[in-house]
């Protein structure tokens, strides 16, 4: 990840598009943030380092007809592939600046590692994060603050791009590890799993950050969790309403979720929402042999219909 090189590439792309969505420095030294670049003078504010945790492809469906450049990591590129598979964006309206990535820092885990202190300065030394707080300087290994997705990353290099910043890299992570966390949870009894999700989801405030950050959650303002007419879901803040909302979200993403982790990253209450979606993706893989966002020519299974599915046993009539 090279900040200067990305500035150069963004500058090139900027002349061909209305806006480039890239990364800038966030509100403090330990945060990056999405940055919408429309003028050359703004290029100086760009960054490219492990603070670039967000999936910027999330903004693409709402860019409508605007010609948009976007900086994507390998994981984020799956979102673009999936959006293309589903016809939610048009390829000719997007210029993809791909960034091979060896892993980013989870802002939440980094904050925890720094005792939730204000961060005065931060720099990277190889795979180390060196951060200064009022308690002094602390050195943290990037691997220790990886978001879960980076631990098992299979696609460090973008699957689709127009420009690549740096050299492609291969994954060194075991493909079997991807669903390790889900398998571990599924090893528990139904009652234990229910208790686990009830405890986690009870913290939900129905702020819909997970939904709005989700690149594939395209109903947005028409989401049935909020519609007032018809009034599908009660506005009570009870556990059953919260569970209902999260299950709707998860089921709407069956065979669509590219496991970018934005839902989990966006959640201010730290609910492990990615795991819920991964479980359904795991089922989709078993039932339909389908993995979202890896091949533009694929047809998402729930977009098609077969009288007899090969891996689904029909009920006797």
């Amino acid at each position, binding site marked *: 990840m090279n900040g200067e090189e990305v500035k150069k590439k963004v500058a090139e792309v900027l002349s061909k598009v209305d*806006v480039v969505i890239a990364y*800038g420095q*966030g*509100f*403090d030294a*330990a*945060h*990056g*943030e*999405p*940055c*919408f670049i429309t003028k050359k003078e*703004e290029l100086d*504010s760009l960054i490219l380092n492990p603070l670039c945790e*967000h999936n910027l492809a*999330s*903004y693409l469906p709402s860019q409508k007809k605007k010609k948009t450049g976007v900086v994507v990591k390998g994981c984020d590129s799956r979102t673009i592939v999936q959006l293309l598979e589903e016809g939610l964006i048009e390829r000719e309206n997007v210029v993809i600046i791909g960034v091979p990535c060896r892993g980013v820092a989870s802002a*939440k885990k980094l*904050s*925890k590692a720094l*005792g*939730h*202190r*204000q*961060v005065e300065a931060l720099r990277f030394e190889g795979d180390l994060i060196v951060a200064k707080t*009022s308690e002094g300087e602390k050195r943290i290994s990037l691997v220790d603050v990886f978001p879960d997705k980076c631990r098992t990353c299979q696609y460090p290099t973008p699957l689709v791009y127009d420009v690549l910043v740096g050299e492609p890299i291969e994954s060194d992570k075991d493909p079997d590890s991807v669903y390790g966390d889900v398998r571990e949870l599924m090893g528990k009894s139904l009652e234990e799993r229910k208790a686990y999700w009830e*405890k*986690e989801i009870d*913290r939900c*405030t*129905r*702020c*819909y*950050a997970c*939904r*709005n*950050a989700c690149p594939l959650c395209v109903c*947005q*303002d028409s989401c049935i969790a*909020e*519609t*007032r007419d018809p*009034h599908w879901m*009660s*506005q*009570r*803040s*009870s556990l059953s309403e919260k569970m209902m909302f999260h299950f709707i979200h998860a089921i709407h993403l069956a065979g669509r979720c590219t496991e970018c982790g*934005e839902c989990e*990253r*966006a959640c*201010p*209450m*730290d609910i492990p929402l990615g795991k819920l979606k991964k479980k359904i993706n795991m089922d989709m893989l078993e039932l339909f042999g389908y993995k979202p966002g890896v091949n533009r020519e694929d047809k998402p299974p729930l977009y098609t219909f077969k009288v007899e599915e090969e891996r689904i046993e029909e009920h006797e009539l």
Partner: protein
Amino acid sequence: MREAGYIPKDALRPFLESLAKRFALWAPCKDGETITFQPYRDGSDICLDRPANAAPKGVIFPQSEALFTFALRKSPEDPRKVDVALDAQVPAGEAAIIAGRPCDAKGFLILDPVYMDADPYYKSRREKTTIITLACPHPYPGCFCTSVEGGPADTAGSDVLMTELKGGYFLEAVTDKGNAVLADKAVQDGAPHRQEAEKRHKAAYDKVKKAFSGGRGVRISEERFLSDEFWEEVTAKCLSCGACTYLCPTCYCFNITDEKAVDKGERVRSWDSCMFQHFTQETSGHNPRPKKAPRFKQRVGHKFVYYPEKYGELACSGCGRCIRYCPIGMEISKVVARLSDEGDASKKEGT
């Protein structure tokens, strides 16, 4: 009755237990990696290390509450005649919130002029709740309380201010309700510790960044505030979720819905968020704020222009949660700085 008290660290549990006997006690507890206000019980995993993820606003202004229940009743003589029975319960019990932060306590002062006279539910809870605040030893990511007339040891809105010292907690009574708390038998004389507490207050105050100056007198440039271009640039990255408003100690907007079963139901008031598209959706189909730019403008305007015009105070206590937990780092303090006369509208730094 003492005005200053002290609790050694090992006496904190007995103090909380004693409070829990007198009040429905709400305390910040560890909940996974988050901290949430929960009813105190034996074995509660109390966490005083940092502010809770969400303000304790919900203790007095719950996220959702039934204003009344209704039931349709058919007349036994003539089933065609249907009568509606209404039942409203105003909350009654005594409660206490311990270890909210000064910005959390101040939040209630901002809600008061809106609800106190108009709303029996809020009024009843507010009057019966004792607020025991924990002073902040240092600022947390995003904090800017000193820019909005507050401070890490500000007593506004609190009944007691608690300050962590080396071996215990210094307690200062701010109101009569606070004096009643200091009468607890677990509380020792605090006078010898006052100086140490004041020293800590001063040190913490100096560490909080000043995001803009002027406090309640912050001068918002009308030209910039009314510029659509400004708001579109500022909100390009906004996801239009409600994290900022729902974690906020001062946001108070609500929605009212009838949650019905077949022949009975509740009229529920629940938090609503000006960040949502539905918030201003009118029955006619028209929506005056259909895009995120005017919605975020409303949030900033409400806190820094409209509310101050009406009530003479800013509707923001600088807790920083909307910055700290925003998924994409919207920074309201920076937006206000850019809007203020000192800010430079031509300089785009993102927000």
